[in-house]
């Protein structure tokens, strides 16, 4: 086990190093002059040169790569051009809102996917199965930026059921200002007993979370269906069945248990994946997270910020992969031998 874990960690380290090299390479594809962008429109030639020095762009590429590496490892991820703040501190500010949003989306996805997947697997081939399968494929085929606009139009603009955009209702800014402790509004509000704020954040979170949930819900429904059908066919479960347990018990007690691990692994991976989908949704809902930060970075051609986000999500992805592998190896020794 230890050997396996060490090997996986070493591989993950290698991948991270590669990811850093890759983002560095992308940074050097940028046409135009980041120093000029940094210095701003009123800058003189001398100020641009100073900016170039300040940003370290006057050194040879190899040296820049080394210092980029060193910087990443020591927490210096460069300075965002459009905010003039360190990328890492920007990320620390915006990431919690996105993690909050994606977590909510995953909960919604599971609430939808688990029952649907089970129903689908319980009676395969029936009309309900076909409808659920079609629905799950619809979920993974959804252009979520479009879904965001449509839901916003219908639920917020026409039906006035939910707030249009933002993180919380503006009037609360004066009556119940939010005190930030963790950066996660949904945790901070109850911690400080700020229930109106909690309700407001929840209401504002709902639409974007439903949109982000479309993809994981579709994917997980299919996963669960496939896993459960697979385990039902398993000799182990067949034996349970032959021992006279009811179909319900076979399903609830045995098949689900076996199916659960791969599903949990998928949840971890699709979580990291959904962080990217926030890019397409947050700006529409004015949700102040990674996605809004990224779209702002794109319009201002803010390469350090874009690459910071890229690196951050890649790291989340690598870590999630690693955690899943180790977790699975821990419960299923066969995997270590692969």
């Amino acid at each position: 086990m230890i050997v396996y874990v060490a090997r996986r960690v070493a591989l993950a380290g290698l991948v991270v190093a590669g990811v850093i090299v890759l983002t560095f390479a992308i940074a050097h594809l940028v046409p135009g002059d980041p120093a000029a962008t940094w210095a701003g429109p009123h800058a003189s030639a001398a100020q641009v040169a100073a900016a170039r020095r300040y940003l370290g762009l006057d050194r040879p590429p190899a040296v820049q790569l080394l210092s980029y590496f060193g910087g990443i490892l020591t927490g210096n991820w460069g300075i965002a051009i459009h905010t003039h703040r360190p990328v890492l501190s920007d990320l620390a500010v915006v990431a919690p809102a996105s993690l909050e949003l994606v977590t909510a989306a995953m909960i919604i996805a599971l609430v939808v996917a688990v029952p649907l997947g089970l129903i689908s697997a319980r009676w395969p081939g029936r009309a309900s199965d076909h409808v659920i399968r079609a629905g799950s494929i619809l979920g993974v085929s959804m252009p979520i930026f479009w879904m965001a606009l449509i839901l916003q139009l219908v639920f917020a603009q026409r039906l006035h059921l939910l707030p249009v955009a933002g993180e919380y209702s503006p009037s609360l800014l004066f009556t119940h200002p939010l005190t930030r402790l963790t950066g996660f509004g949904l945790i901070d509000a109850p911690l400080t007993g700020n229930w109106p704020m909690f309700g407001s954040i929840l209401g504002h979170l709902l639409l974007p979370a439903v949109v982000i949930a479309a993809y994981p819900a579709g994917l997980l429904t299919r996963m669960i269906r496939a896993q459960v059908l697979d385990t039902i066919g398993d000799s182990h479960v067949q034996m349970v069945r032959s021992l006279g347990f009811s179909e319900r018990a076979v399903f609830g007690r045995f098949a689900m248990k076996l199916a659960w691990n791969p599903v949990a692994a998928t949840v971890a991976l699709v979580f990291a994946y959904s962080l990217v989908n926030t890019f397409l949704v947050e700006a529409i809902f004015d949700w102040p997270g990674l996605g809004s930060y990224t779209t702002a970075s794109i319009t201002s051609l803010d390469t350090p910020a874009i690459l910071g986000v890229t690196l951050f999500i890649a790291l989340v992805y690598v870590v999630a992969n690693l955690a899943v592998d180790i977790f699975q190896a821990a419960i299923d020794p066969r995997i270590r031998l692969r």
Partner: protein
Amino acid sequence: MKPHRAGLLFASGSALALLLAACGGSSNSGSPQPTSTASQVFTYDTTATVMDDGWDPATEYSDAIIAMNNMYETLTRYNSVTHKTDPLLATSWSKSADGLTWTFHLRHGVHFHTGRLMTAQAAKAALQRTIKLGGGAAYVFTPVKSMSTPNQYTLVFHLSYPAPIDVATSAAYSAYIYDTQAAGSTASSSALTKWFNTPHDAGTGPYTVQTWNKGQEFEVILKAYPGYWGGWSGPHYKKLVFRVVSQDSTSAQLLRSGQVSFVEQVSPSVWQSFKGNQGIRTVSAPSWQNLLAQINSKTLSLNLRQAISYGIDYPGIIAALHGAAVPSSGLIPDGLFGHSTNLPNYTYDPAKATQMLKQAGYGPGGKALNLSLTYTQGDSNEQVVATLLKSSLARLNINLSTQSLAWPTQWAKAKSSNEANRQSIFLEYWWPDMPDPSTWFTNLLLTEHPPYYNISYYSNPSLDKQINKVDELTATNPAAGSQLYHAMQVEILQQAPLQALYNVNYQYAMRTSFTGFVANPAYANVVFVYNLKPTG
């Protein structure tokens, strides 16, 4: 500065919304306010970051004027109805017969937000610092040779040539009177800038800064300054919130539900949809802003520039913008000195354009002419214009590739030292810093090496001479000045280094819960909130 006012689709909004939230909390401490703050708080919905160019009243040269004009005051204020300046911090003024000496009598007993008395000496120090820093629109004081203060409340300007200095003192930028000793009587000018950016204000206006949530949706919150010289009796808003909302749909919803009081800019179709809504008032106001197409005169010959100018579907552009645009004549918008309807303006004339292109070997049946155009990202009106230009030029066998860029990028590309990187046509809005038309000429058309705002890269020495003397001529002999402006516009139309595609019609929408709003094109998009009367 010039770019923008159009708001960036993504760039604003809530990029860093959580930032400085703690700050917002602390400054809000104290007794919680009643839930129905509607009659107390005026919320201004804007599309772009408000304080994106710092808090220094001397150099701020961007969208912040909507906030600055509520914190700071100028000696005079331009009245767009009478075309004259009204008293503000100066109660009266007079000029000498030769127009070289202007004497301003200042209002008594006005205090800066720092508590210091606003005197002639303080006003002089403020203007001197502004002139010395030379940022923003400080050039409006170019005619000022020196200032003197014969007594505590008298400020005298000595000019090097005759100029309407009472108009300069009403400028929307860089004419603010502020306390230069706000950061301490010995603090340096740069220390004062730092103090401003922390953020502070040191004006005499009705409101003073309460909170700055940089990058947040609720970006700037101003509160009433209790010692304001105008007093606080009668109905007035006590708090002023600048809310950055990048999406039209959100703005519309916020206005409908009464969560914002005033929406600065939405797309024409959304604005139209407000009409007839209960509780919403729509105001359409002519502006001094026009959309310019600056044509690269280094790469495009006179013949081609004229052909392009004939190939633009002006009526089509105005129709597609649904009332947000009105036809322009020459460069100077209606309401400004020098405006003339009697000019040889271009009309959409594809036949003539084809004929001119043919002379150069281009046009239908000839070589294809490949051109590029850049416009500011996030401005849906500019996007419509770019698409229409592309379409009407395509009929002339001109391939126009259009690119939307964030304003700093668009501008940097235009100024690129590698001329091959520059665009053929540059779309941007232009409007004056003070009620005077000279900016269209001095900034956009004077020979510049390297280019700054002269993005046509146009150089015409005889025009340069005319531009350099028009200000003085206007001050001494208005009729001759007007004639010169006319002659210069005729020359520009003939040379075609740039075209005004249309004049902007401001389309504001606001709640009916207040009265007293006056759109003043001299202070684009500024709401002087103190002058409003909340009614419920």
